[in-house]
């Protein structure tokens, strides 16, 4: 059955690529058919635990679905299908679409492959396929390809090669490549290996999950690839890094004799990524960069949750991972919709779209509320569990760091909404119409799902809990959460249903009072008709306030943001380039010098012959 799934995806990708030569319609139908077919088969036919193995090049590869991978495939296929619908209308006018759809489907295939592979070789193969198919996406738009594209492929290759070394070491020691075997006799490895193998694996995963030292590629890559794919890129692709991290932390690190320092380092790295990511997000003027940094920050939360490793923390990490895919997907789609309708994504250029793109506004409002973690929506549940787990496992300073990151997250949340939708309505954007239905529907679907999760998180916590049971955690159904109630280790609880009903009740009550009172004789007035200290601004005067939006706050945190990681990498790169240029000079071009090199080589070998040849 798994063969059929993969062959559909692969065959579909190739067919879509070829169909592009024939006709656009055929290509779109193939694309949709492949995507829907794959999702359908996955959720109907594939029963959990079915294993399939076959051998290639004297290694036997084993693929299978367990509930842990089923949970992550939920993210991949759910977000993937919605993004597929969105992509159909987002990519309408653009050229070489066959290439785009091909890489889209291949990346979905490789993500499924990663999640379903039970042995290291196929894990690595799918990992690399994911890398270069998403690389095609990053360079698809053709803008600053040398900078961001090379940056992305270099970092992911660095991570992939670290993983390859780890796999080679594991294979050399236990002569088998299956993950289960690696975990079971992880104890027998020499102490040095026992620390190095997880570190190497985590290097690869933290590159993909954009953790602090290795996150430099993320803003460039997320903002350059087309928005239709970025929602999958940041929503699902980065979760593969989290998938790997959870695997490593749960199976390997817990066996380590002194695993506390390991967890502390990663927890703090996650927290620092969260803080720096948020601060950088506040300072961005380009919406895509803002969202890119914000997903780096959100991933920081998830990494901290995974690193802490108590069952509540892991549960919150899994829940936040799925949630992040939802609201980040919606936000990137919203940016895509705005980019398609107005052509620019800069806050300083676009303003006042609320009346022209109301549905996009509602979707991004709900997504922002979820992102900020504010109660009525799902975000709060994840954040609450994360804080409780941090407090219960007495990481007190870490709680403060994470809380600071999430409060300053409100700043860029407001900047995103105000930048695009609120503020002055300018004439140049008067012509803007709402994004086509095919784009708005996926956004509203995801936002709606966030609302439901707000009151009934159990829907998502149930699969997350079964996933954790396969990892060996005790079932948390009873004592940590039930359908719409959250507990923490100290017995405190939050009953979500009454609270959300109360919030909704109060909100509607006062909203009705305000709108109904004097409904007859109040009329809508454009934003030009305001009483800014007495005199009325003229039509052509532009009063939009969006340039250096949080200047005072940024001045307050200035010293922390001065030294950026990317400058260190650039200097390192420049240093390497000069070294390369120097080594190039060895080949001087003069035939005689080459002959002299030969004689010098001979003399050296003659002199050293006893040392070399014993």
């Amino acid at each position, binding site marked *: 059955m798994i063969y059929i799934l993969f062959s559909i995806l692969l065959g579909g990708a190739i067919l879509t690529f070829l169909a592009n030569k024939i006709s656009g319609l055929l290509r779109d139908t193939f694309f949709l058919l492949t995507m829907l077919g794959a999702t359908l088969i996955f959720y109907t036919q594939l029963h959990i635990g079915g294993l399939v193995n076959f051998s290639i090049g004297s290694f036997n590869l084993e693929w299978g679905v367990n509930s842990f991978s089923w949970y992550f495939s939920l993210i991949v296929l759910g977000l993937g299908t919605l993004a597929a619908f969105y992509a159909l209308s987002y990519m309408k006018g653009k050229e070489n679409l066959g290439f785009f759809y091909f890489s889209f489907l291949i990346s979905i295939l490789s993500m499924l492959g990663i999640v379903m592979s039970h042995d290291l070789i196929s894990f690595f193969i799918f990992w690399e396929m994911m890398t270069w198919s998403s690389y095609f996406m990053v360079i698809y738009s053709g803008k600053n390809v040398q900078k961001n594209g090379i940056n992305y492929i270099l970092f992911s290759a660095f991570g992939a090669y670290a993983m390859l070394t780890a796999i080679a070491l594991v294979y050399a020691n236990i002569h088998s490549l299956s993950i289960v075997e690696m975990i079971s006799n992880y104890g027998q490895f020499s102490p040095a290996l026992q620390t190095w193998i997880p570190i190497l694996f985590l290097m690869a995963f933290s590159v993909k999950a954009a953790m602090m030292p290795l996150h430099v590629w993320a803003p460039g890559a997320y903002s350059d690839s087309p928005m239709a794919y970025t929602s999958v890129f940041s929503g699902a692709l980065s979760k593969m890094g989290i998938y790997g991290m959870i695997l490593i932390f749960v199976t390997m690190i817990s066996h380590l004799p002194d695993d506390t320092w390991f967890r502390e380092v990663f927890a703090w790295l996650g927290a620092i990524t969260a803080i720096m990511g948020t601060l950088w997000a506040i300072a961005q003027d380009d919406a895509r960069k803002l969202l890119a940094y914000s997903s780096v920050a959100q991933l920081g939360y998830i990494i901290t949750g995974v690193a802490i490793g108590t069952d509540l923390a892991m549960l919150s990490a899994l829940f936040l991972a799925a949630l992040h895919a939802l609201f980040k997907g919606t936000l990137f789609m919203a940016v895509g919709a705005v980019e398609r309708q107005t052509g620019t994504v800069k806050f300083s250029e676009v303003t006042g779209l609320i009346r022209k793109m109301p549905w996009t506004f509602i979707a991004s409002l709900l997504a922002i509320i979820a992102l900020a973690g504010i109660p009525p929506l799902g975000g709060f549940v994840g954040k609450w569990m994360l804080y409780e787990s941090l407090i219960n496992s007495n990481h007190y300073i870490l709680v403060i760091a994470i809380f600071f990151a999430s409060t300053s997250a409100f700043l860029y949340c407001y900047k995103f909404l105000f930048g695009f939708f609120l503020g002055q309505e300018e004439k140049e954007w008067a012509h803007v119409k709402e994004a086509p239905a095919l784009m708005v529907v996926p956004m509203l679907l995801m936002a709606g799902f966030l609302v439901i999760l707000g009151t009934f998180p159990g829907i998502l916590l149930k699969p997350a809990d079964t996933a954790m049971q396969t990892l060996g955690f005790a079932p948390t159904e009873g004592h940590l959460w039930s359908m719409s109630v959250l507990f923490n280790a100290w017995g405190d609880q939050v009953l979500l249903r009454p609270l959300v009903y109360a919030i909704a009740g109060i909100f509607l009550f006062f909203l009705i009072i305000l709108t109904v009172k004097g409904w007859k004789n109040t009329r809508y007035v454009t934003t030009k008709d305001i009483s800014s200290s007495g005199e009325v601004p003229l039509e052509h005067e532009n009063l939009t306030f969006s340039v250096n939006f949080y200047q005072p706050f940024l001045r307050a945190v200035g010293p922390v943001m001065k030294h950026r990681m990317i400058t260190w990498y650039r200097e390192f790169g420049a240093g390497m380039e000069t070294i390369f240029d120097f080594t*190039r*000079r060895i*080949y*001087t*071009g*003069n*035939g*005689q010098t080459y*002959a*002299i090199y030969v*004689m010098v080589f001979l003399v050296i070998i003659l002199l050293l012959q006893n040392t070399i040849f014993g």
Partner: protein
Amino acid sequence: MEFKLFDLSIVEYAFFVTSVLIILIGLYAALVKKTLIKIVIGLSILDAGINLLLISIGYLKAGTAPIFSPALVKNMPLTLENIKKLSEGMVDPVPQALVLTAIVIGFGVTAVALSLVIRLYRHHHTLNIDEIKNLKW
């Protein structure tokens, strides 16, 4: 047939010393001289030196040519020990065969080298190897 190398009389040493000397001269010319023609000449001197070295390996004091001419064989039965006895006095033929091919190869290489030198001169109008350096780094 045990072949000895270093317990030879002074004469045989002379061969080795001279061939090594010629090799060194050839090397010197090829590596230090700047003009192309001198380099090619140095290379051919080098070849000559090596060929001399090869020949001198097969040298036998007062050895005769390694041919079983009828005068030498004088209708002796061709048994194994007869052949061995006759070949005692003969010089070893194998290095000579090697040298023949080596000389032919040396000749071929020098011919190609000279044609290249002519073409280089036509383009660069100079024979100094230091000026012919556009393919670098």
